[in-house]
């Protein structure tokens, strides 16, 4: 798990370029929380860790210093509190029944009684809420869309992943024991709906950052296809699904951070947050647009990119397990993502417009998204190393528990 954490922290340096002084303590708070999440051994630590992250995040969102940011910060707080409340009740039930909340101890003892099922469902719902899965996603776009771009990058790249990671952790440990396949299918279906709905909404946004934020809803959906493909299937399918989801998580983190940063640069340069004002930007901000494009390749799941390999594995897993109904979802999702990514491009290539004054953006701000985007693309060619690191990490934890 330390490897996992190290890998995540690996691309933090990129954010530091654009962070201002007063956000540092919140930044470190989130970092601390995230590290705790990655390494948590029991439910209560997980709970505390997530609260720490949430605190930092609320602070970050509210930094926007506008009424809108405060509103979305409050909305986020509400979502998070409801989510963690559900999680806490679930944990308490578990504690009441088994007298322990340690994940590894529980793995041995847990059995499929009704009460445990309820607790399990509560924990799942709580985490799903925080991971912003459709239909519990409505807090995410305003929260991510209204904060500063590098912060949005941080939020969507890492914070939603924390909840997803916790959920995957719980399900991997217990899913086979008490989780019904039906619930897993349900999560998958919700994921599929999120892919379609998020993609569709992203196509309809008029603000650049809201588009990127809805793209997160769309991409988070892919994570949840993982559950039906890992519960109640053969070992082979599960391995494919795991590889797919790991790649998806990493490449989405890289690509989405790049998208937000590039979008932030574009917004700053054109002095407007609307997509309609992008026309002619390909002349003045080629580098940011190019990063946007490279990151977009990964988001669309086209080669060569981490997103493409992830899609490849998930396709294989669904074919192998006979769950062919995910295939049209994956294809449709890819086309929808292409539709919203290329909306930006076709707008920025438009030449028939009056040339607007452009506020120059420091070159250094354009470097971070480019590095991230290139990493997301490069992952599609050099996935062997991270994948084998992850596999080792998994084997180690499996042996440990």
């Amino acid at each position, binding site marked *: 798990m330390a490897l996992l954490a190290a890998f995540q922290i690996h691309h933090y340096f990129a954010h530091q370029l654009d962070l201002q002084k007063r956000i540092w303590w919140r930044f470190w708070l989130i970092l601390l929380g995230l590290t705790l999440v990655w390494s948590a051994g029991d439910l209560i630590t997980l709970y505390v860790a997530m609260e720490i992250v949430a605190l930092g995040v609320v602070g970050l969102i509210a930094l926007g210093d506008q009424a809108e940011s405060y509103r979305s910060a409050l909305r986020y707080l509400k979502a998070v509190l409801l989510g963690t409340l559900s999680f806490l009740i679930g944990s308490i039930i578990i504690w009441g029944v088994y007298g322990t909340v340690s994940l590894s101890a529980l793995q041995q003892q847990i059995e499929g009684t009704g009460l445990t099922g309820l607790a399990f469902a509560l924990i799942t719902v709580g985490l799903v809420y925080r991971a912003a899965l459709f239909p519990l996603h409505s807090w995410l776009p305003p929260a991510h869309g209204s904060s500063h771009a590098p912060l949005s990058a941080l939020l969507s790249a890492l914070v939603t992943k924390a909840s997803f990671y916790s959920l995957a952790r719980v399900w991997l440990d217990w899913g086979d024991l008490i989780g019904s396949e039906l619930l897993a299918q349900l999560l998958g279906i919700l994921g599929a709906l999120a892919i379609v709905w998020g993609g569709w909404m992203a196509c309809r946004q008029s603000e650049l950052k809201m588009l990127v934020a809805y793209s997160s809803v769309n991409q988070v959906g892919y994570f949840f296809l993982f559950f039906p493909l890992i519960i109640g299937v053969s070992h082979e399918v599960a391995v494919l699904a795991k*590889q797919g989801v790991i*790649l998806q998580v990493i490449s989405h983190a890289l690509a989405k951070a790049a998208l937000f940063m590039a979008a932030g640069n574009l917004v700053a340069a054109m002095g407007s947050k609307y997509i309609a004002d992008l026309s002619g930007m*390909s*002349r003045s901000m*080629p*580098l940011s647009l*190019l990063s946007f*494009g490279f990151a977009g*390749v990964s988001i669309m799941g*086209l*080669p*060569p990119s981490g997103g*493409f*390999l992830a*899609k*490849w594995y998930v*396709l*294989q897993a669904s*074919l*192998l397990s006979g769950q062919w109904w995910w*295939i049209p979802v994956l*294809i449709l999702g*890819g*086309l929808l993502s*292409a539709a919203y990514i*290329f909306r930006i*491009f*076709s707008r920025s*290539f*438009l*030449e*028939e417009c009056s040339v607007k004054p452009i506020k120059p953006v420091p070159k250094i701000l354009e470097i971070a998204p480019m590095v991230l985007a290139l990493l997301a693309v490069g992952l*599609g*060619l*050099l*996935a*062997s190393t991270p*994948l084998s690191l992850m596999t080792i990490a998994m084997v180690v934890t499996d042996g440990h528990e």
Partner: protein
Amino acid sequence: MATNSLLPLWVLATSLVVAFIIFTIPEERFKLRSFLNLSAAVIKLLLVMIMTWGVFQGVFYETHFEVAPGLEFSLKADPLSIVFAGLSSVLWLLTTVYAIGYLEDSPNRSRFFGFFSFCVASTLGIALAGNLFTFLLFYEMLTLSAYPLVVHRGTQAALRAGRVYLIYTLSGGALLMLGVVMMYLNYGEMPFESGGHFQQVDVAEYPMLGFIFFLLIAGLAVKAALVPLHGWLPSAMVAPAPVSALLHAVAVVKAGVFGIVRVVYDIFGIEFAYMLGVLVPLSILASATIVYGSIRALYQTDLKRRLAFSTVSQVSYITLGITLFGPLGTIGAIVHLVHQGIMKITLFFCAGNYAETLGIHRIDELDGVAKRMPWTSMAFTMGALGMIGLPPLAGFISKWYLGLGALESGMYWVLFVLVMSTLLNAAYFLPILHRIWFRAPHPRWLSSQPVKRVECSWLLLAPPLVTAVLILLLGVFASWPMSPFSWAIFMANQEYGL
């Protein structure tokens, strides 16, 4: 047998690295950019020539590494890749020269040449791909890198065409990917090997393989512009002339056809595809496309649109040749892959010259243009006559072998298709030639005599002249040992184990 594992990578790197450098070059550094472009193109051509010579001598070129468990990235040089890589690198050099002349003083040149180089890198990647996975990788890279070229002008019409292009190609790409994933899942790693992988396969597997074949071909057919998936090609004509030239002759359309060649010969194997019974439907589709494209071309009044429908028709000759079961059909197909590219690029260069120098876009404006631009008109005539299949030009060789292939495989109705299409070709090209040479010239041009000694910029004139000469040479000296024709014979012998 000697092995060389670096050369394929160098061939790709020449344009990939240049693409990145060009993006960072400021717009006004015209000379530096042109120098980089041209030197990259020349170096690439030299590398491909070295590789051609090597393959001829039996050297084995291969680069491969593991992308992820069970997935290999592999670049390989076999005769088929040499044919396609050779074509691409020669035409890239010419098109670069042409594009430098064509885009003089127009905006966004850094962006254009950057994506232009990306596009060529992807095409070379497609040519050298050693397995299905690597092919898919570069195939999609090509889809994306060609988009900024199609919409380069940034007008509403261009953006609309770009949207149409994306809808077609990305949907096709999704089908192709699904096909490739199913292939890998059921049959493992899929390197390209002549003869294919399915010589000994159980009859129970046939429906599955047939379905995969359908997915792969449906995905590839979008780019190869087979009817009814050809709609994007005529609308993509809004792109600047060098882009159309490249798109029609080597890059996008050819990538689709090349993929079909690979899938039929090197994945399924021609004999197995024959047993599977998928060749006949494909040949019917190709024939329908040939006739349909020609008929539509007849009715176009815009020069570039007529050429576009002509491409729809001509490129399907290659698909048709593949489906003719027998070595002669194969020879016809492979040779036409090269010859069609050279003829079509000549025609597009000339169309671009007419548009750029005299502002001619419609066919009825071409009256007597030969008086004003004799050299361009000569090159155009060469391309058009080649397309019709007049001996001894390049187009004749390919049509002749396609006809022989049809006889050999006993598919006599294909002969009928060939004759009919030749008549149609003549029907839509000869009136243009008549206008160019024999009609009274437009008074406007006589007053606008060229200021310089030549009719237009040398950068625009030289490329079509070179390709026009090539059309003649490839026809006359077809049996020279290094000609595309000889490579095609070599390949056909390999495929059929002769």
